[in-house]
């Protein structure tokens, strides 16, 4: 019996691509690719920790890009960001199909990997759109529009462009409290940052770090939200369908007590 090879990587996209490179380089036919902090309780396995290597990762990605369309590349990246357990193996299997077929050959869309990746990418895309819609900024004393989120998938890399284009003339920070990193725009570019005390920027810290008028604008918004509701048309089922309860924690209008 051959022992199964498990390739461990640091969780980054480049790290994953480095695993693909190693798998091809060392002719490992069906490896399991897994993040190093995910526990392993399988017997008879060979564990190999792969060090992220940008050049190797780039070679894999360039090769993939030359054989696929831009929307397929985006779907691939989105599926990776889902962080769903085992998604790396589906992505690897899909990459093998791409690399083993001649360029531009029509690929059967009944392929189960493609189906899975398309579905997962769609889930990630919906979450991205919801974060774009439901982020609520609060203005801090040092003039940074700040927001905390905890999305189901790792969507921050996907929303950078949207927020950068939209809020080009204000400093802003969106912090993912689950994954413990944020994206910060300083009026010229967007950078990835980590905070030592992320609890400080949570919405309930409003008296300490947020501008005094911030509370006033939140109240105005909440007043507006309540005034546009037509009571005789109340439709709770539809309301919750559009605005699932797990997003309410972000929403100023759902958390202001008069």
């Amino acid at each position, binding site marked *: 019996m051959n022992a199964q090879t498990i390739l461990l990587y640091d969780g980054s996209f480049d790290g994953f691509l480095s695993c693909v490179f190693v798998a091809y380089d060392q002719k490992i036919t069906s490896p399991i690719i897994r993040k190093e902090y995910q526990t392993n309780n399988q017997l008879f396995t060979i564990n190999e920790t792969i060090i992220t290597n940008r050049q190797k990762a780039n070679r894999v990605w360039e090769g993939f890009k030359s054989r696929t369309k831009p929307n397929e590349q985006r779907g691939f990246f989105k599926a990776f960001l889902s962080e769903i357990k085992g998604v790396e193996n589906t992505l690897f299997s899909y990459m093998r199909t791409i690399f083993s077929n001649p360029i531009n050959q029509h690929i059967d869309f009944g392929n189960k990997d493609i189906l899975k990746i398309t579905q997962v990418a769609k889930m990630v895309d919906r979450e991205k759109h919801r974060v774009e819609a439901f982020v*609520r900024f609060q203005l801090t004393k040092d003039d940074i529009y700040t927001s905390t989120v905890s999305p189901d998938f790792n969507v921050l890399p996907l929303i950078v462009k949207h927020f950068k284009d939209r809020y*080009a003339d*204000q400093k802003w920070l969106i912090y993912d409290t689950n994954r413990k990193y944020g994206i910060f725009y300083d009026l010229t570019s967007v950078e990835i940052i980590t905070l030592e005390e992320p609890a400080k920027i949570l919405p309930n810290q409003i008296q300490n770090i947020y501008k005094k008028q911030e509370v006033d604008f939140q109240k105005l918004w909440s*007043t507006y939200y309540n005034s546009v509701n037509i009571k005789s*048309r109340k439709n709770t089922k539809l309301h919750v369908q*559009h605005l699932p309860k797990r997003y309410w924690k972000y929403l100023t209008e759902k958390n202001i007590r008069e």
Partner: protein
Amino acid sequence: MSFDRIREKLSILADAAKYDVSCASSGGKRSNTNKGLGNNTGMGICHSYTEDGRCVSLLKILLTNHCIYDCAYCITRKSNDIKRAAFKIQEVVDLTINFYRRNYIEGLFLSSGIFKNADYTMERLIQVAKKLRLEENFNGYIHLKSIPGASDELMRQAGLYADRLSVNIEIPTISGLKLLAPDKKHEDFVKPMTKVKNEIIQYKEEKKIIKSTPRYAPAGQSTQMIIGATGESDWDIMRSANYYYKKFNMRRVYYSGYVPVLTDNRLPSLGTAVPMLRENRLYQTDWLIRFYGFSVNEILNDTHKNLDVDIDPKLSWALRNLNLFPVDINKADKTMLARIPGIGMQSVYKILQARKFRKLNWSHLKAIGIALNRAQFFIVCDSKDFYKKELSAISLKEKIVKNSSSKYKKLINGQLSLFS
């Protein structure tokens, strides 16, 4: 500014604006080129939803609810004894900007009661839009209400700053308008609509020659009708809607079920239920006409003046035209596929794609996601097992209604029991 006063005004003027249905923020592409505020990609975003399930995308308010008119259906009519308020231009600008910066909204939808006269009011609305665009460098969405009777010159200016313009005709028939809004003339509504339509056509022409032609209302114009305030039939409403789509190139006609807010012997009494189901059937008809290739007269005509409440308009049409069915899924052309009850446009495209590779059977159709509970009686596919025409239209309808569950079931039963 005093927040308490602003807050009071906001609650009055948002409350008065909420009967305007439109909250679309799409179609007005405007990129952020010079590090300004806002970037409109042409796709709308709903930032929140009210408890009645409607999207909140724009800050939708009136500039003032003072009004010189006395339209029976309107909550801000002159003779109604309510609190009145008016925003200053700068206040609207500040609210819009501060809400936008916090990611609450996509932009502004500004309407107004009419104070002094049409032009005076329109000028104020334009000033808000102009300030937002030129002083605040704002690229978000702006929807301005065209005030009935406003001059051509002002309508020209409005379109330069706004993404969308709209006039609500409110009452679908001219006779209804005379009854409920005696001071308003039908021509006053048509005048700004005509101007906007012509400006959009002219812009498109000039754009071909001079690329830098200033943009004019990129998201087009829309209008709205109140449903169930006067006794008009669905046929009247849809003919009227069709006229506005054709004559003025409307992007949308909205149908708004009348919410009784006033006591007036010309109108349904307070406490009358909002005709939400009828509203829904009208939207379905609107879609059939705009996207499915139906004409108004096929769905509504002299013998069928009103839509069925218990079944959707396409099914109703199919039951009246059973001689056209069954349709062969593997052979029929696009137009006929779109006419099968239970099959939407998305499924039509999927069927057209999928049948290139193989003949489709029931399990394929199920996977594509068509509503078989209705469609099965109107189609044949790659299977020997299909519905043989054995029931009359009436019994077939009963069978379908019995086997389907509608989210409106309660409403339907309630409305039907009135007649039994």
